[in-house]
């Protein structure tokens, strides 16, 4: 039953940009896939394991920079860079998370934010990767190897879809596995999980590794799609927060949340930008911000909460009660 809903979503997403061939719409679909996947990846560490990360832009940026620098300096295929970026992100996530996992709750969240800001500052002043100027990816002819397609947006969409499919499936198999239950146990009570013989640090590290590696994959796709990156763009707090916001909006701690959240937030932000952004007066972001406030105020349990309220036998997906 649950599976059918998921496959329905996959099918619908896959068909849409072929049914509606408007270029703006295809762009929105690509951004949707990127951010839904980012939300899914983030959800593994925050939704399942309860460790709020405000710094996922760090891994996104590492993914974007690894593939871009390799292609820009050495002509290495972004596909290789993508995998390498995921590996580097995983290693760095372990290095920085190992000490940070001593911290609980907000102290951990602020630490992730601090780490991401530090990494951003380092890239800004790192001349080898062109510092604050950023890197324009050299344009070559359409090629799968170079992950560049100038004629149509569809190839980008298909790559995005493949990543989306992969990441949702990974998140889902984690959720169903023993590890998923361990993570949720850690989320509900660190002490109780430990008392039951779960090693919280080990599983938190594992979840963080997977989450950041997956996040880095999307960094590469984003860089290849936009063909330009700079530290303020890919390491920005805005990216970190967008990932948090759409997942919270959809509903934390289950695999549908980020998909629903991204399906609402990304068209909202992209279309307000397309229709109102040209003035340079910030009207688009103003309306976007106001709408976020309105949604939060009138649907404070997230969209999943709204759906759950509509009858249905409910599982304890995110049964965190408020004190």
């Amino acid at each position, binding site marked *: 039953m649950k599976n059918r809903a998921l496959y329905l979503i996959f099918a619908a997403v896959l068909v849409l940009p072929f049914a509606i061939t408007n270029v703006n719409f295809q762009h929105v679909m690509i951004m949707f896939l990127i951010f839904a996947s980012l939300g899914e990846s983030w959800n593994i560490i925050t939704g399942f394991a309860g460790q*709020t990360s405000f710094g996922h832009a760090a891994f996104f940026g590492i993914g974007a920079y690894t593939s871009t620098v390799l292609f820009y300096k050495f002509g290495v295929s972004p596909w290789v860079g993508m995998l390498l970026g995921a590996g580097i992100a995983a290693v760095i996530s372990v290095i920085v998370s190992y000490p*940070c996992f001593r911290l609980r709750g*907000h102290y951990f969240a602020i630490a992730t934010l601090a780490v991401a800001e*530090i990494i951003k500052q380092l890239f800004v002043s790192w001349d080898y990767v062109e510092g604050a100027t950023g890197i324009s990816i050299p344009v070559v002819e359409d090629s799968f190897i170079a992950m560049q397609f100038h004629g149509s947006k569809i190839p980008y969409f298909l790559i995005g879809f493949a990543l989306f499919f992969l990441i949702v499936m990974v998140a889902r198999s984690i959720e169903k596995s023993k590890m998923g239950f361990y993570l949720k146990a850690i989320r509900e009570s660190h002490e109780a999980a430990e008392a039951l013989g779960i090693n919280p640090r080990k599983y938190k590290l594992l979840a963080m590794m997977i989450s950041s590696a997956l996040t880095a994959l999307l960094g590469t796709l984003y860089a290849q799609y936009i063909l330009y990156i700079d530290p303020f763009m890919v390491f920005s707090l805005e990216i970190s927060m967008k990932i948090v916001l759409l997942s919270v909006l959809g509903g934390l701690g289950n695999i549908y949340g980020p998909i629903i959240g991204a399906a609402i937030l990304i068209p909202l932000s992209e279309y307000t930008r397309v229709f109102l952004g040209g003035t340079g007066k910030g009207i688009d972001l*103003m309306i976007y911000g106001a709408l976020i406030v309105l949604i939060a105020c009138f649907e404070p349990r997230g969209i999943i*909460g709204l759906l759950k309220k509509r009858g249905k036998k409910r599982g304890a997906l995110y049964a*965190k009660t408020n004190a």
Partner: protein
Amino acid sequence: MLLQVLLTGVLIGSVYSLVAVGLTLVWGLMDIINFAHGEFLMISMYTTFWLYALLKFDPLVSLPIAVGVVALVGVLTYKLVVKRVANAPGLMALLATFGLSLFIRNLAQFLWSPNYRFVSESLLTDKRFIIGDLIIGLPQLVAAVGSFAMTLIIALLIKKTKTGRAIQATAQSKDIAELMGVNTERIYAITFAISGACVGVAGALLANTFPVYPESGAMYGLLAFVIVALGGFGNIWGAFYAGILIGLAETLGGFYLGTQFKYAIAFLIYLLVLQFRPKGLFGW
């Protein structure tokens, strides 16, 4: 020279402290991260700027007006937004205040353009003391002393007054505070007003020396998060000392390693200190 750097650090740190005190009050009381806190500061700076540009009010004269304006913004934020999301699960309150910060920042850009604006001639402009090798700018000194005074007032208010004790009680347990006859709704609104008043003071004092533009509060907001956590959530004096520490880290780091690293150093200090004090300097 070192002395000059240290002094600069303490002076700016004092202002950081006051901004963080405003944030830590709300955070400690309601467990809510107000992402719009930096934007409150920006509102105060704009209030001061416009009173100066249109009515020729000196920033020191407009200070009480800025305090009133931002305190009102704080109360409205509570009544219209935070109240509705306060009991929502997960990070929904964060979502709401983040949306609010986007809204306020871009509203400012829409109304007043992204241009930098300056309070060019005030009572304090370009006045300075020179003691030996030390140069102390009067605007910076007044900002630091004013911020410290406000922090002191807030600390006394929380500790000594009946309202302050009610705030403490609500922070410990909302339900029991209610049973004791505390109107917690009112306490929340008051706390948001006090929080706004803190950045109101800070913004008016900063407008003397810093440019006013839609993003002018953003970095202060971000640093305030780190300072609040560094000091321990809800701890006023913790936020104060942490603010001074971050101010020092920033100026020392900027001086010895280059200004591009000054914020990185401040964030690094947080990560290092929390290794030894996982709940902040004064957390328990």
